[in-house]
């Protein structure tokens, strides 16, 4: 029983560290703000969540101590990190950061409030 729990904990923590590494690699390698933001906010969220879940399980198995603060932290990160990613991407778009030159689709360009913002920037 204990060995199975240990293996689960090890897998969770290594998976979390690996996902955080993937997020850092994506921030370096991807071409523009939006794709970088996509890599950072998705992959790092799941990475940190699985590291925290591993820590929660470790202290529960080792000491029999259920740390509800870590569970609260998992829920908190799950709720707030995508919102932060959304706000960063939206702020970048509203301040006129260009998309990658090979991207083919920009649905927001025809949105009515974006047109007004674009004309305000040009004038």
């Amino acid at each position, binding site marked *: 029983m204990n060995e199975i729990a240990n293996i689960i904990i090890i897998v969770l923590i290594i998976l979390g560290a690996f996902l955080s590494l993937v997020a850092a690699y994506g921030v370096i390698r991807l071409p523009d703000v939006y794709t970088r933001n996509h890599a950072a906010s998705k992959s790092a969220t799941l990475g940190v969540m699985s590291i925290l879940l591993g820590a929660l399980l470790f202290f529960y198995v080792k000491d029999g101590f259920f740390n509800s603060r870590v569970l*609260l932290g998992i829920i908190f990160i799950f709720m707030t990190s995508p*919102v932060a990613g959304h*706000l960063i991407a939206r702020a970048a778009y509203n301040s006129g950061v260009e998309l990658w030159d090979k991207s083919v689709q920009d649905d927001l360009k025809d949105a009515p*409030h974006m047109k007004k913002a674009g004309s*305000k920037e040009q004038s």
Partner: protein
Amino acid sequence: MKTNDVILQTATKVVLFLIVLFSVYIFFAGHYTPGGGFVGGLLTSGAIILLLLAFDMKTVEKILPVNYMYMIAAGLLFAIGTGAGALLFNVPFLTHAFTDVDLPILGHLSLHTAALFDLGVFLVVVGVTMIIIKTIGEDD
């Protein structure tokens, strides 16, 4: 340009309760675990600052009609009151008292007057932080 902050505002409404709950927990757990009045006060003011980020200042003043100047004064009064209360019992200034109480609903409680001192620290920290943020934010 009229922006639409519905994602930020909805997330704030959910997350705010978590932050306030956690700050109250940190405040009360300060005697036996890491935490206390300072960290709890900073977390509470962080929650109010999140409200200020998601909504505008007038809405937040309507939600929390608190004069933070009075909050600082009340906190200092709590701190000096717990200190001076010791003088009434013929012991030196800032001598704290400790009792265990068994209440019918709440169960076994360890009550310490240092918690009241910590409440003073909490109120002063929240008041000072909010006054700093609001006076910087108000001048356009």
